[in-house]
């Protein structure tokens, strides 16, 4: 169970941080060559913080509330490092990578949801 929870945490963290990063004008311009619109900024920020919170809930439920927060922060750090390197070397790949990360997170989560529901 543990590796899939960690995969979900890493995926959610990466997608969340990518969204928060793209809500900043400087990085938005690096990736899309234009400034972000106000509404887009708000959507990206809301998604980003929501995904970070969701990652904590996933970690807490999946690993217990002792390990969960540790794994949550660990995954955030690891994802942030990956994001910064990608942003620095291949900024164009950031948005697709975030979508892939979200997909990676969705697989174990939907499997877990299926296992729980009757």
């Amino acid at each position, binding site marked *: 169970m*543990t*590796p899939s929870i*960690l995969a979900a945490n890493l995926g959610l963290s990466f997608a969340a*941080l990518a969204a*928060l*990063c793209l809500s*900043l004008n*400087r*990085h938005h*311009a*690096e990736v899309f*060559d234009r400034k972000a619109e106000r509404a887009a900024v708000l959507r990206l920020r809301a998604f980003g913080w929501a995904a970070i919170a969701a990652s904590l809930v996933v970690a807490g439920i999946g690993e217990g509330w*002792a*390990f969960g927060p*540790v*794994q949550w*922060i*660990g*995954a955030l*750090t*690891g994802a*942030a*490092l990956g*994001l*910064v*390197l990608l*942003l*620095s*070397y291949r900024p164009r790949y950031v948005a697709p990578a975030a979508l892939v990360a979200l997909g990676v997170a969705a697989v174990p989560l939907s499997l877990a949801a299926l296992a729980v529901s009757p």
Partner: protein
Amino acid sequence: MKGSFRQSMAWLHTWSGLIVGWVLFAIFVTGTASYYRPDITRWMRPELTRAEPMDAPALGAAAERAVAYLQEHAPQARSWFIALPQPDKPVLDLFWRTRPGEPPRQAMLDPRTGAEAAVRGTRGGDFLYRFHFELHMPPLWGRWIVGICAMIMLVALISGIVTHKRIFADFFTFRRDKAPRRSWLDAHNVTGVLALPFHLMITYTGIMTLALMYMPWGVTTAYRGDNQAFFAEAGLVTTPRPPANRPAALTPVGPIVERALATMPETLERLSVVNPGDANATVVAVFEEPHGLSHQHPQIAFDGVSGETLEILGGGLKPAAKTFTVMTGLHEAHFAGTALRLLFFLCGLMGCAMVATGIVLWSLARLPKANERAFFGLRLVQALNIGSIAGLPAAVAVFFLANRLLPADLAGRAEWEIDAFFGAWIVAALVPLVRPQRRAWCEGLAAVSLLCLAVVAADILTIPGHPLRLTGGGDPLFAWFDAAMLLLAGLFALAARKVLRYEAPRKESQRERSARPEPAASPVSPTRAPVRQTEPTHA
């Protein structure tokens, strides 16, 4: 302090970081390696192959053999420590100290025969682990120095947070293609800020692991300085029993081991025999930590003469004591499985990078103008930077290399390995003093890369059971270790190439004069003039 709060914090950050930077770097590198301490130890003792777990009677018999050996070789010792065989380490590891002040003695026995095991002499990963908090100095000195450095690190972290003007705006910013100082500063900020929770946690919990030594005053006032009484009352150790000074025969430990195993579900890790041969002898069975954050070994104390159970400790700590053990547990990360351990390791590497970029920044900020000579302090700092950032990894690689290349039956072999470590480090620290700085960087980094490759080559050539030599067999540990070494070799080679290709460090004044036009697409191309002001205040 003149200027604002932020300026004084910037000053504090710069200088506190510089004076302990090199020691901190060594602490971070050896600490990060210590996340894999058991694996490193196992790699350095290739004679030991994984074994099936032993059942209770076999473990009991092995413990009896250990006691027989100790009764013959260490009858005067005040306590014996017997690490029982585990699948990963199928030997009896004995440790005893005859009297205070004398160096401890150690022996390794084959658990099935009781004869000394045929294992090459090495300190293994324990050397790096102890270096992490003792710096291979007398323990009292080393621990105090590490503690002071950790405290200064905590201050540097706090002042760094205050100094960093745009912690959120620059959260993801790493401009690797800008002026060198800018890129280094970004790298310093990114490695510092992204792993900030880790850095704060590891520094504070690190101090806490030795807090009773650094800050004994609570125990002094409330327990009149009796640490053992405090530990026992907090439920961290079993109640100590002073010697009765009457001789009595030690009860056989085999049945004790079997009873201990029947009481606790965890793996039995070791036995401590306190005051063997005395009427008040105590045998404490120490178990592995149950799955959880806190670093707390369940223990059972037995009377060493009658064999009856005296005390069972297994969890149930009160909140503050529990917090203490959780802090130690977080610091050591024994609980972390493969993936989480990798994340901790990555955070450790970011710590190393943060310290390394920090000390490099200090010298970059003080590069002389075109017509000036570098002042002596700057040259010394530059040489020390190379000597630690390239020198320490080179020394670790030489330590591993010595483990493979020294003859297995060399007298004092473990010390030879350590001598090789320090010899390599001293050479690596002295050479940059007489080489031009950029060449020295390049040579140092390339040397680390080559040494890592040499470790892999030596491993494959000297280990008959290496997975690459046996098709479909062999311990995968060797393959993993070598893969990590190859990765490090690649990283250091990449770094060396970067230094080689790097344009000669341009002086500020020259850059200002020849302000080259930036590509128009670049979204943030600060004009030259304000750069000096917006350039963050620390460095």
